[in-house]
């Protein structure tokens, strides 16, 4: 789309780029953001940075405060306390500057059903102050990018949910914004459409910094450089998905099935170095042991040696690591009472 932009916009963009490369300032900076609706506190002291060029996933159960945070960033709601800036501009006092640099796809992609796709995109390009020649080029570019070419002359009201989502996305990237903010871009799509959307978002991240929210962890893990997990208005985990997985998944579990004298097996295995606790169940002649190891110690070798030394039969030994998914499920099911104490930067 670069060719479609007027000279001044290109010059402006390269200055913006130079500024951010030179200073290393984050593209999105959020500091101690608080938003209250009456007595309800929707978000409670959120801080994070999104660096230029990153894809950041904003993860949390429904009602965690994702949409509220996003609405503050896009200038739709003002914050009660705290500050936020996008591309160096304050979202409250320099709202118009921020809005020019943001491409925003709200949850459920609201659009005017009576307008045709091309007509809608033309309307939006004019709101962004693009000339008709620039707009025409930009529209062609985003339409092919979002696989909408066949549908440009269809009224939006006739399109399926997935299609409308794409029209919303096309609108968001129309003016080649520095930052793309997408609120639940995969909700209500079928599995194929979800995969397509995610790969499109990944593709878009080559030109734009992307912040997108979701309540489904695997989607976020798949395409994000960083994840921010938020629950009840607070950040509970923040970092690269892989690192977070290692950090949050504190323990591991071993399942071993051994044939022999049950009580003795339990005692001997319990005495192995690194073993924290052992539980035993008898299953058609086999002793099924569930072993908790201390930290991330691997005691599989010890168990094997013990069994062969004593002449016990060993038919299965399996290690299960707690994943980020387990941790996330724990949060979403409400098992984590106070998020703040658990917050870490991985």
């Amino acid at each position, binding site marked *: 789309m670069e060719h479609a932009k007027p000279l001044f916009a290109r010059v402006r963009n390269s200055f913006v780029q130079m500024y951010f490369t030179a200073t290393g300032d984050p593209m999105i900076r959020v500091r101690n953001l608080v938003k209250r609706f009456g007595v309800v506190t929707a978000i409670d002291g959120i801080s994070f940075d999104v660096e230029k060029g990153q894809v950041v996933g904003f993860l949390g159960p429904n009602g965690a405060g994702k949409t509220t945070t996003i609405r503050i960033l896009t200038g739709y709601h003002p914050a009660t306390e705290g500050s936020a800036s996008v591309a160096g501009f304050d979202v409250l006092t320099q709202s118009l500057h921020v*809005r020019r640099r943001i491409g*925003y796809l709200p949850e459920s992609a609201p659009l005017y059903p009576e307008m045709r796709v091309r007509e809608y995109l033309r309307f939006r390009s004019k709101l962004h102050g693009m000339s008709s020649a620039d707009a025409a080029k930009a529209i062609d570019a985003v339409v092919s990018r979002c696989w909408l070419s066949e549908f440009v002359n269809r009224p939006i009201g006739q399109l399926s949910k997935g299609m409308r989502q794409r029209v919303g996305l096309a609108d968001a990237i129309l003016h080649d914004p520095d930052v793309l903010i997408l609120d639940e871009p995969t909700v209500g799509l079928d599995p194929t459409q979800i995969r397509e959307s995610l790969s499109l978002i990944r593709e878009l991240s080559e030109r734009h910094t992307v912040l997108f929210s979701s309540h489904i962890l695997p989607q976020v893990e798949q395409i994000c450089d960083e994840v921010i997990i938020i629950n009840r208005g607070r950040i509970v985990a923040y970092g690269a998905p892989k690192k977070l997985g290692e950090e949050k998944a504190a323990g591991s579990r071993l399942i071993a099935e051994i044939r022999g004298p049950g009580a003795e097996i339990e005692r001997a295995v319990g005495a192995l170095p690194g073993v924290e606790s052992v539980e035993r169940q008898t299953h058609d002649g086999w002793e099924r042991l569930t072993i908790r190891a201390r930290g991330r110690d691997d005691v599989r070798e010890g168990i094997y040696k013990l069994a062969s030394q004593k002449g016990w039969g060993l038919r299965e030994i399996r290690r299960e690591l707690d994943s980020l998914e387990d941790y996330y499920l724990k949060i979403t099911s409400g098992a984590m009472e106070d998020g703040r104490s658990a917050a870490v930067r991985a």
Partner: protein
Amino acid sequence: MKRVSTLAERELSVYFLSPIAYVVLTIFLAVSGVLFITQVFSPGAESSLRGLSNDVWPIILVFILPMITMRLLSDEFRSGTIETLMTAPVTDADVVLGKFLGAMVFYLVILATTLLYPVLLTIWGSVDWGMAFSTYVGLILLGGFFISVGLFFSAWTSNQVIAVVCSFVLLAVLMFLARYLGGFLSGLPRMLVQHVDVRYHYEDFARGAVVLNHVVYFVTLTALFLFLTIKTLESRRWR
């Protein structure tokens, strides 16, 4: 300004895509057409628009203009498109003015259809074009004020029915109740009520006089309601 005209253009095109515009046009043209034929366009009748412009049109406008303004903002709130609109690089004032102008142009289209009447009258009689001119000035000012009231209530609710009823009630109070109450009063209270009475300010236009007082009255009230609409929109961001 370019953004205001973009927004106005969209509103105008939506009117012609939705059934409501045709309903409104039909009501307006049917009522004024029937009255024109029976009251004005008959032998011996006065060759002027006064039969229509004095009472009939202002009263029809109380009913139909809320119908064309009700969806302006309500519909954006209901469908959630307000979020894409208010996060685009446009100010709240751009949005309000754009919507106002869109509705205004649609209203002018409705009014333009009535230009047929003075033309017909000139063929079979003579028309006082000066008076016709002042009538249209009055109708444009009156309609602009009604539209700003409708737009204001549309900013308060996502429910179009509530918006239309509220604006209808306020316009009816200003049009009918004020005059009715004025009949019971005298002296200063009467004068105050008279100033609230929209028809008192409009009637001179229908009589053929463009009086500055009345022009100022309509322009200020319209500006006031547009201002209140902008403030309402701003305040909605905080909720």
